[in-house]
C-alpha cells in the first residue's frame, strides 16, 4: 500500500522516479504489471484472470516467491482503451518499476503492447491473447506467449468436427465482428476448404461485438437450416446467442460448434443442450479427464470456488501458466546465472525451450516464443453431478500436432491440411466419468 501511495504521489508530482533494480542485485520485490480487462464486456475474462492471479501470487509468495524475492502484482485496466492502456503500461514499467508485464487479453492489446515492450526492454508475457499473427508476422525479443494461439484452437476444432460429424454438407458462421471473429473464421475456412472442399457456406454473419439481440441472425439460420453452425463468440455475446437460439429451437436443428463455450458452461446451466461441440482455448477444463483428480487441480478449484463461488474458466488456467512459466523461467535463468538474480535478457532467453507443467498438461515455449499447448474438445452431455453441461466424448489434441510449425504462416498451413490428421494416433480420447 505504501508503495502504491508513493507511486501515486510520484505520478502526481513527477518528483520521483523509481529506477529499475540493477541486474544481479536481488530486488526487494518483483513487480509484475498485469494488463487485464477490469471494465467492459471482456471483464468476463479479465476479472477471473485477476482473481486467479491474486491466488497464484499469494501461493507463490507463501513458498518464498521467485528466487526468494516476493512478487507483487499491479493491475492495469485493458478496458480503458488501447491508447490509455499503452500509457498505463509505460507508467507501471517506468514509474512503478515493473520488470515483468503480463499483456494482455485482447489480441489488439497484445499487438499494441509488443512494440512498447521492445522499447521498454521489459519481459512481456502474453498471458491470454490468441492471435497467431503476432509471432508469425513479427519478431519480438521481449515478448513470449505461455499458451497456444488461435491457429491451434481452430485446427483442433476443425479436426474434432470432422471426426464427430464427417458428413455435414452446409455450414454457417456467426462470429463477433472484430479481429478474433474474423481471423478465426478465416483459419477455419481455409482448413475446411482443404479437408472438405464441397461444403457449402450458407451464411457468414458478423454481428456487432456486444450485440444484445441475435433474433434476425437466428431467423436466418432457422430458414437456412445449415448442418453446422460455428460460433467463436464468447462472454455475454455467446450466452445471449445460445440462449436465444435454444429458445427458438435452433440448437436442435443444427450441430453447434462453440470453441469457447467452456467459459460459459456454468452460466448457461440448463440452457446448454447435449450434443454441442465445445472447447476452451486449450486443454483447460476443471474436469480435465487426466488431471481433474490431481492435488493441484483439486486445491485450485476449491480455493477459486471459495473466493468467487464459481468454477474456474480458461483465463484462470492461462494465468496459472503465465505465473508458473515466469517462475520457471526465472529459476532456469537464475540457475544458469549461478544462483544470482538474472537480467531481463537472461529471463527472456530462459523462456526459449522452457518446458513446464500447467494444471492440465505441459507447456513448451518454442524458439519463436510461441507456447505449445494441448487442445481439449468435447461434446456436451448432461449429468446429475452438475447443474450444467459437461464435456463428453473428449479428444485431446497434442499442441505439437495442431500448432503451425515455426516459420510457417497459419493461413497457408491450414490450406495444406491433410485428412489423415483427423485420426492421428497422438490424439487421445476420453468419455465423461465421474
Amino acid at each position: 500500500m505504501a508503495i502504491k501511495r508513493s507511486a501515486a504521489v510520484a505520478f502526481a508530482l513527477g518528483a520521483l522516479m523509481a529506477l529499475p533494480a540493477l541486474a544481479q542485485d536481488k530486488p526487494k520485490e518483483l513487480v509484475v504489471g498485469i494488463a487485464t480487462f477490469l471494465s467492459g464486456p471482456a471483464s468476463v475474462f479479465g476479472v477471473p484472470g485477476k482473481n486467479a492471479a491474486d491466488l497464484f501470487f499469494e501461493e507463490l509468495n507463501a513458498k518464498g516467491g521467485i528466487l526468494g524475492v516476493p512478487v507483487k502484482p499491479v493491475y492495469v485496466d485493458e478496458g480503458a482503451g488501447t491508447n490509455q492502456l499503452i500509457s498505463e503500461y509505460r507508467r507501471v514499467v517506468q514509474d512503478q518499476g515493473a520488470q515483468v508485464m503480463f499483456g494482455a487479453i485482447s489480441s489488439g492489446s497484445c499487438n499494441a503492447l509488443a512494440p512498447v515492450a521492445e522499447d521498454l526492454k521489459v519481459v512481456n508475457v502474453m498471458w491470454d491473447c490468441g492471435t497467431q499473427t503476432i509471432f508469425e508476422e513479427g519478431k519480438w525479443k521481449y515478448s513470449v506467449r505461455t499458451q497456444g494461439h488461435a491457429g491451434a484452437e481452430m485446427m483442433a476444432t476443425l479436426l474434432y468436427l470432422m471426426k464427430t460429424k464427417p458428413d455435414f454438407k452446409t455450414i454457417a458462421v456467426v462470429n463477433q465482428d472484430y479481429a478474433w471473429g474474423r481471423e478465426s473464421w478465416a483459419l477455419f475456412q481455409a482448413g475446411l476448404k482443404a479437408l472438405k472442399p464441397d461444403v457449402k457456406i450458407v451464411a457468414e454473419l458478423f454481428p456487432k461485438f456486444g450485440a444484445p439481440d441475435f433474433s434476425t441472425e437466428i431467423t436466418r439460420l432457422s430458414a437456412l437450416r445449415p448442418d453446422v453452425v460455428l460460433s467463436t463468440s464468447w462472454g455475454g455475446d455467446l450466452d445471449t446467442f445460445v440462449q436465444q437460439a435454444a429458445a427458438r429451437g435452433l440448437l436442435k436443428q443444427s450441430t453447434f460448434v462453440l470453441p469457447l463455450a467452456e467459459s460459459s458452461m456454468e452460466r448457461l446451466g440448463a440452457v446448454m443442450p447435449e450434443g454441442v461441440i465445445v472447447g476452451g482455448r486449450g486443454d483447460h477444463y476443471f474436469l480435465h479427464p487426466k488431471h481433474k483428480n490431481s492435488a493441484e487441480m483439486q486445491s485450485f478449484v476449491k480455493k477459486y470456488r471459495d473466493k468467487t463461488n464459481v468454477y474456474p474458466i480458461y483465463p484462470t488456467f492461462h494465468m496459472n501458466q503465465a505465473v508458473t512459466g515466469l517462475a520457471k523461467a526465472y529459476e532456469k535463468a537464475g540457475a544458469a546465472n549461478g544462483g544470482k538474480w538474472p537480467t531481463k535478457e537472461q529471463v527472456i532467453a530462459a523462456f526459449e525451450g522452457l518446458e513446464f507443467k500447467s494444471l492440465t498438461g505441459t507447456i513448451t515455449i518454442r524458439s519463436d516464443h510461441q507456447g505449445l499447448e494441448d487442445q481439449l474438445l468435447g461434446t456436451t452431455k448432461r449429468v446429475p453431478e452438475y447443474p450444467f453441461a459437461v464435456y463428453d466424448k473428449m479428444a485431446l489434441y497434442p499442441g505439437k500436432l495442431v500448432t503451425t510449425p515455426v516459420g510457417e504462416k497459419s493461413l497457408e498451413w491450414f490450406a495444406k491440411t491433410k485428412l489423415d490428421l483427423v485420426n492421428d494416433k497422438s490424439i487421445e480420447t476420453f468419455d465423461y466419468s465421474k
Partner: protein
Amino acid sequence: MARQYLIGAALLIALIVFPVVSPWSTVILTVALCEGLAALGILVLLRAGQVSFGHGLFFAFSAYVVAFMAAASFGHEVLLLVPIATAASGLVAALVGLFIVRYRAIFFGMLNLAISMVFFSLLEKLFSVTGGADGKRVPRPTLAGMTLERETFEFWMFYITLALAVTAALGVARYLLSPGGKALEAIKSNETRLEYLGVSSRKVLYGAYLLSGLLAGLGGAIIALVSGHVTPELAYWVRSGEFVFIAILGGVGGVAGPFLGALMFQIIRGYAAVHAPETWHAVLGVMLLVIIFFAPSGLYGLIAGRKRKSAPKETAPKETAP
C-alpha cells in the same frame, strides 16, 4: 490580464521542466497536450454556445491518416505526417461544417455525435482496411530525417507538441479577440442581433468549426505518433465526451484552460488507475461533478479568480487573453 499571462507562463515553465525531472512522464504529458488541443477546439465552439459530442471524428481521422501514411513508404517522416494529417482533418471539418453550421444547440451536438458514430462504426466494420476494433500499428517514423530511439523520439515529440500547443493557444487567443472571435460570442448571446448587423453567423461559425476541427486533428495526429497505435475507440462518443469534460474541467475562460484541464484529467486518471483500477470511471465522474457544482468556471477560473458569480446565464467568463 497580467494574471492570465502568469498562469500561461507558469504552466509553460512547469511543462518545460517536468520531462527533465521525470522522464517517464513525457508520453503522458504529450497525450495530455493532444487532448488539450482537442479540448481547445471544443472551447472555440463553446464560445459560440455550441457543444460538439463528436470531435472524436477529427481526432481519429487524422490519427488514422498518420497510421496509413506511416505504414506506407512515403510517409515515414513526422514533419510530413503531422501537417498532412492535420490538413486532412481540416478538410473533413470543412466538409462537415458546410451543413453542420445550420444547426444550433442540441441538434448541433447530436449531428456531430451521429457523424462521428458513423465514422466509428466504419472503422470497426471495415476490418480488412482498418484492422477493425484492434486498430492499426503506427511504426515510428523519422524525425527531421533522423531515426530515433524511443526515448529520444518521445523527448523531442514532447517539445514539438508543446511548441505547437503554445502556438495554437496563442493563435486561438488572438482569434477570439478578433472581430471573428467577438462575433462568435454574439452567436451565443444574441444571434439575431448579429444577423441584423449584417454578419453571417453561419460564416462565423464555419470558421470556428474549421479551426476546432484542425485543432482536434493536430492532437489526433500526434497521439497516433506517440502511442504507436490507433483504434476506433478514438472516434467513440465517450472519447468526444471526454474532450468536453476536459474543456469544462479546465475552464473555458482562457486558452490555458483546456491544457490545465487535460493535465488534471491525466493526473486524476493516473491516480485513480493506481488506487482504484476497477472504479476509475467513477473517480473521474465525481471529479467532474465537483468541478461543475463548486467551480463552474473550471480550474482556470479557480486560479484566475472568479469574476462573475452572479450571472447564471454566462458561466463562461469573457476574458480571452491566454
